[in-house]
């Protein structure tokens, strides 16, 4: 007897624990196999770009915290960089170093969440993510020292940072930098040769190199596909040209490579932290900038290598105290473009892993 089958549509999400926020995937399934998929989002749209047009340049900094809330420091960084480019403001040396230290700490914290929740999605439920949150907590303590916040830091300012780092910061950072490589080795010991992890991620959700470039992917997603592009190297901003670090890349562009690239990037961030800590000069942390910035008429695009990819801010000024146009180039929104290509042909259980390996933050996708 032949069983007659027909494809059916399943709504995956919007509220589902493995969608990392409110995100819906409209899947057409043939049995367990995905034949079509359409991402539906916008549930967390807050109109940040419109809100920013009503605020002063400094007043927009807290808004950027709320884009990718697991990496607020780098959001601040990209935004102030764009404003500084627009207004032609220079930043004191010490502030540059502090910014780099914060950005790299943030990268580690964000990758810890990314890798932890990815392993959660793979079925290693809660154990790895708890180990990783343990380390992330130490970074949050460091951020707490400098900004008084644990999630939305609002720490960087146009022309520097809001305040100097306190005395106890450097010893705590030294301790962290010393211990972190050991912790990364610990994750590796636990997971690197885990047969289940390999079976579920190797060769799954492949993003070929050409497609990755064509869809404008960035960050670990692009590098896992074998493209050696990192804004810190390709277009060095701030003082990144002074540090030695490698750009880890993958070869296959599968979920495993994306996971490996993130682990390796954490090691590289520790390297940068070590160098920045040793070179940290004394001096001012903020140049003399008026409280209300009036950039000249014009436009600027500032971009950085955020943990999730190329985060860019496109600002247009009409010489008033508020930006005329405030656009965010959200890396995770653009990385999602290839989601359908990566998922079609795989089973529902793989879809969760593929989605998790892109590591999105819905607050940034929807803005």
């Amino acid at each position, binding site marked *: 007897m032949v069983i007659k089958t027909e494809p059916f549509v399943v709504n995956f999400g919007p509220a589902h624990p493995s969608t990392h926020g409110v995100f819906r995937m409209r899947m057409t399934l043939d049995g367990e196999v995905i034949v079509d998929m359409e991402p539906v*989002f*916008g549930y967390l*749209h807050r*109109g940040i*770009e*419109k809100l920013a047009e009503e605020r002063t340049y400094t007043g927009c900094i807290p808004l950027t915290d709320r884009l990718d809330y697991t990496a607020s420091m780098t959001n601040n960084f990209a935004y102030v960089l764009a404003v500084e480019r627009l207004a032609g403001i220079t930043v004191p040396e010490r502030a540059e170093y502090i910014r780099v230290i914060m950005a790299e700490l943030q990268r580690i914290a964000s990758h810890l969440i990314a890798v932890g929740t990815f392993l959660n999605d793979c079925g290693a439920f809660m154990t790895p993510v708890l180990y990783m949150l343990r380390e992330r907590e130490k970074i949050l303590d460091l951020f707490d020292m400098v900004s008084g916040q644990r999630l939305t830091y609002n720490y960087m300012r146009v022309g520097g940072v809001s305040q100097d780092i306190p005395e106890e910061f450097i010893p705590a950072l030294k301790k962290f930098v010393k211990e972190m490589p050991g912790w990364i080795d610990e994750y590796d010991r636990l997971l690197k040769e885990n047969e289940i992890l390999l079976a579920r991620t190797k060769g799954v959700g492949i993003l070929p190199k050409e*497609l990755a*470039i*064509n*869809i*404008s*992917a960035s960050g670990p997603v692009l590098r896992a596909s074998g*493209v050696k*592009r990192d804004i810190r190297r*390709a*277009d*060095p901003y701030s003082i990144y040209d002074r540090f030695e670090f490698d750009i880890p890349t993958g070869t296959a562009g599968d979920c495993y490579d994306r996971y490996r690239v993130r682990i390796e990037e954490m090691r590289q961030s520790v390297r940068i932290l070590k160098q920045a800590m040793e070179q940290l000069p004394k001096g001012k942390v903020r140049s003399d900038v008026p409280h209300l910035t009036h950039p000249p008429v014009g*436009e600027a*695009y500032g*971009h950085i290598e955020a943990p999730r990819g*190329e985060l*860019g801010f*496109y600002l*247009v000024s009409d010489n008033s105290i508020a930006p*005329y*146009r405030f*656009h965010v*180039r959200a890396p995770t*929104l*653009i990385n*999602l*473009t*290839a989601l359908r290509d990566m998922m079609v042909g795989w089973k529902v259980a793989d879809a969760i892993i593929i989605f998790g390996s892109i590591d999105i933050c819905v607050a940034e996708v*929807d*803005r």
Partner: protein
Amino acid sequence: MTLALSGEEIAKQIEKKFPKSIVKSSPEGLVVDREFLLEVASYLKTARGLDFDYLTAITAVDYLDYFEVVYQLTSIKHNHSLVVKARCYGRENPSLPSVVSLWRGADFQEREIYDLFGINFEGHPNLKRIVLWAGFEGHPLRKDYLRW
């Protein structure tokens, strides 16, 4: 360092190939006539020495007289960049050709511009609202959108 190519020089190069296709050019970037947008974009993507294989970002700005769509192009091969703009007029039905056929990364971004600015991208495979719901009235990022 990513080399920002001069809009003026590239504009001369394009003018040779497509006469009257450039509206304006400056060292920061160039403005392409909307009729030629797709041809010029295709040329920029494939011409030897330019090879703009990576579309970093697209966004739009509402200047009330016209909408300006800004394309940030990058070449991963040569590590250089260029800002290309296109203008479209009218508040009722502004439109531009879609570049999704060249760079698929434009897909969601063009949909977002359509959603928030109301610019139609001709030839887009799936042009519908992306962050707002289907029945939403108006386009909030326009400067004349009712505030509250």
